[in-house]
């Protein structure tokens, strides 16, 4: 089985086994169970709350921030799943579970609101530390306790600096993008 058979590598075989195990576990243990509904409800609620709190006037800028942080966190989260450093035992969808993982959703939503409401580096950094602490030391242990999150080769306090660095880096990126646009506009009149 581990040999290359007709151009399809062993890797593809294991990928198939993994996907069918994901789908099977999901059908048997996750789908339509209370915890699954709870996760779905929480996700929709978080999303609606975010939309209510958004300053619609600054929508392009704040969504740009959310999108960039989402891309970085998708990368980080999928790395964590593949290595595997952590696991999400309950999935809304069984394929590419990362996109429906709650902490993936919470981070862009929370940090984009922080970005919107705190416009100096000092105030932004302070609140970022606070939010990162809240997510790493309250929300994630809470999710682990509820069975939504499982640490394998990871500690809660590893996440803490990662979240802070990502949030600061993306703020720097967005400011840079808008700065370049401003200068280009002045340049061309």
């Amino acid at each position, binding site marked *: 089985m581990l040999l290359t058979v007709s151009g399809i590598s062993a890797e593809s075989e294991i*990928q198939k086994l993994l996907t069918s195990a994901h789908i099977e576990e999901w059908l048997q243990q996750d789908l339509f169970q209370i915890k699954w509904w709870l996760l779905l409800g929480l996700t929709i609620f978080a999303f609606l709350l975010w939309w209510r709190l958004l300053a*619609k006037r600054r929508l392009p800028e704040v969504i740009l921030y959310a999108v960039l942080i989402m891309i970085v966190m998708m990368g980080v989260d999928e790395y964590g799943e593949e290595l595997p450093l952590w696991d999400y035992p309950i999935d809304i969808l069984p394929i590419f579970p990362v996109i429906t993982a709650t902490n993936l959703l919470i981070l862009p939503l929370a940090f984009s609101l922080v970005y919107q409401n705190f416009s100096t580096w000092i105030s932004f950094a302070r609140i970022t530390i606070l939010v990162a602490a809240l997510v790493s030391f309250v929300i994630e242990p809470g999710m682990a306790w509820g069975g939504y999150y499982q640490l394998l080769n990871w500690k809660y306090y590893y996440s803490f600096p990662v979240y802070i660095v990502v949030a600061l880096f993306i703020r720097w990126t967005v400011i840079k993008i808008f700065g370049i646009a401003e*200068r280009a506009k002045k340049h061309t009149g």
Partner: protein
Amino acid sequence: MPDSGISAALQFQIQLTAMRIDQWLQEDVFHFRWWFLLGLFSFSIYLWWKLVDKRRLPEVILFMGLTTILTLILDEYGEELSLWDYPIDIFPIFPPMTAIDLASLPMIYSLIYQYFGTWKSFSWATVIMATIFCFVLEPLLMWGDFYQLLKWKYYYGFPIYIAMALLIRWIVITIYTIARKTEEKR
């Protein structure tokens, strides 16, 4: 519930990752095709930066970011469902992150967004681009062994490429319209 420790899926995941890293070390990293892919990535980023209208940078990057997210999701679905495969990876973990798709799609799409300002011209450009992608680039990539179709046909991608571009254009325009209307109300 996996309270009892580690689920079957997790076991397969551990195996799969170990195997990917192994294959990558033996067959991909520092080989010619690996360098080629890396070069292509760098070149397309450079070219994009030359061509992008800096005055509209936030808008174009927003379009590109949304395209990246959607491409990543579709690519990862394709890999997990074994619809296609990228035999050469710049990096062995989370392959779609460095797949050839991601080096080209978001950048080309966002430039089309920048250059074609009406729905009509944008749609035409999208159809032409999707045709080139599905029927020229993908067969070429397959020939070069960067891409492998498992349970997929080239023309399946065609409507997806078009729908994706139109959807994202609609989202970006809606975001800007909401912002403008709110501004006007003040």
